[in-house]
């Protein structure tokens, strides 16, 4: 456990001493602030539904930037050789990188909580959809970080890793549109691969175990493939 904590601490330091983290957080909060203010002035409704969809899109765009260097950089600089010839397991290395990246995503969500607090102070929001929206975003973030980590484990070039993640995310975003062109039962299968189809109920205040199960499954699959990619070397 202490060895794992050492790995986690190393990853946390690497993330939070990098300018990328602060650029991503700043861009995220500026965009969120603009959307929140605009939506509130236009709708006069104490809801964060628009904000949640905005965060959904921003996650698709920023998670590749957060995860691109995780393994690709270690592979390029060959520090992976140093790390994996020490007595640590591939699972520990991947989990440490995953949790560290997830903590940055968590920090972004935490900061965006200021908007919910603002609504709570100045209005009477329905807290159910707000809680379910944040739960959905947390699950979405967990799945996206795992997929980003997986693509970073596959290549030694950070930019390629980011583009690969982005392509996978965009495909999983629009895949339900493609489902409409397919016959039964393929259409149902393809539609159910869509991130948006599973996120929408969370954002609007409906909780389904199947939606949570989808994000958890994607996260576990991403982590499993990351470990396999690391062990492949």
């Amino acid at each position, binding site marked *: 456990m202490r*060895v794992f904590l050492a*790995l986690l601490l190393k990853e946390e330091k690497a993330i939070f001493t990098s300018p990328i983290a602060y650029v991503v957080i700043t861009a995220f909060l500026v965009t969120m602030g603009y959307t929140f203010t605009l939506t509130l002035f236009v709708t006069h409704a104490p809801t964060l539904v628009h904000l949640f969809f905005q965060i959904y899109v921003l996650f698709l765009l920023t998670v590749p930037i957060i995860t691109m260097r995780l393994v690709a950089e270690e592979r390029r600089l*060959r*520090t992976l050789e140093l790390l994996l*010839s020490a*007595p*640590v397991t591939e699972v520990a290395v991947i989990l440490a990188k995953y949790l560290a990246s997830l903590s940055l995503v968590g920090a972004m969500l935490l900061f965006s909580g200021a908007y919910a607090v603002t609504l709570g102070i100045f209005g009477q929001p329905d807290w159910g959809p707000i809680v379910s929206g944040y739960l959905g975003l947390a699950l979405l973030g967990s799945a996206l970080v795992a997929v980003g980590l997986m693509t970073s484990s596959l290549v030694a070039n950070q930019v390629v890793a980011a583009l690969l993640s982005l392509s996978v995310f965009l495909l999983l975003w629009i895949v339900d549109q493609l489902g409409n062109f397919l016959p039964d039962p393929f259409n149902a299968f393809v539609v159910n691969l869509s991130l948006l189809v599973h996120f929408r109920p969370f954002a609007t205040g409906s909780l389904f175990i199947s939606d949570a199960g989808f994000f958890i499954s994607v996260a576990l699959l991403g982590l499993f493939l990351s470990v396999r990619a690391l062990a492949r070397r």
Partner: protein
Amino acid sequence: MPDIVVAEHLVKRYGPRLAVRDVSFVVAEGEVVGLLGPNGSGKSTILRMLTGYLPPSEGTVRVGELDVRKDSLAVRRRIGYVPEDSPLYEGMRVSEFLSFMGHIKGLFGRALSAAVATACEQLQLERVFKMPIGKLSHGYRQRVAIAQALLDAPRILILDEPTNGLDAYQVIGIRELLRSLAGQRTVILASHVLSEIAKITSRVMILANGRLLTADAAREGGSVPAVCLCVAGPAPAVSAVLRNVDGVTGATVEPTQDHDDVNRYRVEFLPGTLVTGLLASTVVAHGFGLLELVEEKPDLEQAFLNLTSKAANLA
């Protein structure tokens, strides 16, 4: 000494390319062994397989009683490894890096502080202890890489081209350090610099095209063990006496310029026979004056050229 590393029929394929072909060797505990070969001969791949970083495509590696594949973590606890070109975390300070490497090797608290202090003293890192690794010279980076490998006092130290890119003083420093470890630790080092490996190691293995050409270059490389003597006495009589000594395969005479009666002899003998003392006592017993006796060091360069050219011809 018992064998601590046993590699049997190691094969490594990278796709269709064979990087290592059926390599087998043993290393005894406390030995300092060199792996010599041209660039691309498979040295680094073999070292990576010994550390468990790369799984062999075929064959096995045992470290002590442990199998590198099945007991990978336990094996890695016994090995300190310095990869080629010292890949390090550029953003970390030396102190941070050594602490991190100590942590992942299972060192904490006082044990960690003591290990870091010892490694820093051995590698003379005190001056750069708080500096970021990214700002260090190549020599210091190499020393930091060796320091991390020594942290948990591993039984086996594996170094890939440890003196690459170092200046003469740094090379001497690393050489002295590795020599001082002989007997306490088993050291396996790879290099393509023949002179360097000859100075550090007690045994040299030669590789070419992924094949192990010899597990002991001095013994099998074709260089003949020989002794040079300077003897006062009639040349035909001295030669006859020298040739009659058990194990001697030949003696050649070379007159010296200073004295008519003093000649230099080069005596070749069978590998594995120790004739130096016998030669000296025989010369003296026959009433000749023994002025000088020098044992010739095995010609590693010749052995390397012989073996690699044979391998090239076979290929």
